[in-house]
């Protein structure tokens, strides 16, 4: 297990902290699924977002910037 993965007990504590108490028989499965989702989404941490804002509800096609896509590692080059 890598350092950024949740154990079943940690998953249960995190869930409880968000207001979702999990029965004991859910801890293993929720931890495994949460760790899988994390492994997919964590790749976004490579990106250097600069001043890029989020786009929660947007009008498609209205924004047209010409910034190049950069990763965090590009910034140090």
């Amino acid at each position, binding site marked *: 297990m890598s350092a950024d993965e949740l154990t079943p007990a940690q998953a249960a504590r995190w869930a409880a902290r968000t207001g979702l108490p999990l029965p004991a028989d859910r801890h293993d499965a929720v931890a495994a699924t949460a760790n899988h989702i994390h492994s*997919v*989404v964590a790749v*976004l941490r490579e*990106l250097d977002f600069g001043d890029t804002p989020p*786009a*929660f*509800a947007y*009008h498609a096609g209205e*924004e047209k910037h010409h910034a190049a*896509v950069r990763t965090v590692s590009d910034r140090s080059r």
Partner: protein
Amino acid sequence: MQPFELSLTAAADAIRARQLSPVELVDSVLDRIEKVEPHLHAYVTVTAEQARRAALEAANDAAAGRLRSPLHGIPMGLKDLIDVAGATTSASSRVRAGHRAEADSTVAARLSTAGAVLLGKTHTHEFAYGLTTPQTNNAWNRDRIAGGSSGGSAVAVAAGTATFALGTDTGGSIRVPAALNGVVGLKPTYGLVPRTGITSLSWSLDHVGPITRTVEDAALVLSVLAGHDPRDPASPAAPRADYRPGVAGAGADLAGLRVGVPRNYYFDHVDAEVEAAVRHAIDQLQALGAQLVEVEIPMTRYIQATQWGLMVPEATAYHEQTLRTAPELYQADVRILLEAGQLMPAGDYLHAQRARTLMQQAWARLLDDVDVIAAPTVPATAVAADEETITWPDGTVESVSDAFVRLSAPANITGVPSLSVPVGLDAAGLPIGMQLLGRPLEEGVLLRVGHAYEQTQPVRELAPVA
């Protein structure tokens, strides 16, 4: 030819010419439902008596020369996430037992005003959170998946049990089942068709649009559905338009049109028969005068991460209350995703939102160079109902849901319109779809190209449901 076999366009022409009455058409489709629905399970509910009453009203209006729109008297199904006043919106879930919609969704109201006749509500993968729609069977082979999440709508249109239907699309849920059942599916530009009154899976990725037999049919439905709704924060103030190919642009000649053919991503890990059929269709576009331009799809490493980073926490947020009060009512596959979604940090969600902005900018640059992009809709045809993974020739194993979302997600993330058009069958007789992606609000271009392609092909027949 029986009335249930008619495309929307053909049925509308026949009604306008008084060769066909809405009553005959609706009766024919209801008879078809009675005959084949037991094999398909496309519908949650069929409201036959209401449909017959609406058909009679439409017939009386037609006889008096009052046609409300090209959809006048046309029978259709709505995915059961779409509110119809007084009816249950089941979301194909036990969680919604006893639900009753207080008002029509914007799309249901617009279809009703246009004179369309509601046949019933079609099955979705529970709350649209999945790509198979396990309740429903594929229209071409009942041992294969319908695809999802708008599986009921696509199967009904393919089998002749609805002349058209609406679906929703958060990661491919209109286009995937459309492709797997050999019908046309249009995911419009984000916000163009208002989502007011539709159960959300993920607010910033959800779209609603038509599933039809032909591209021209999709254009007719879009012309009724599109238009500003101040209650949907994504709804653009664009004026209503007529999207029919003959109105929106030139005919079958595609001279001057630049068609982007991806050199990466869209043809990676794609079944050989699917690739061959799509490339053959692209050759047809070239034969119609289009110029093919090789293009590089940007930020592909971040597509799945962005899709999941947006969808997972938004879906969990939508279901926050019922996940606490009645978690046992959800199906196991949906419940676990909703629970795990609770554990995503806000920082990761913001990464996905900001990555979306970057991806939109990169796609805008890409679409400066070409007018449309042509690609497979789904990397494989419909898998068997008990298959959970696809193994690619290089040994890579991919879950069916990951594979089916993979080529659809970019249009959900960026909001660009995407049209799936049938381009043939594989050796097992299962349908293959090609998607055409374009600039925001340029549905007219996609419909023109899709229609031009369809004109080069023999008229498609309904799925051969036993």
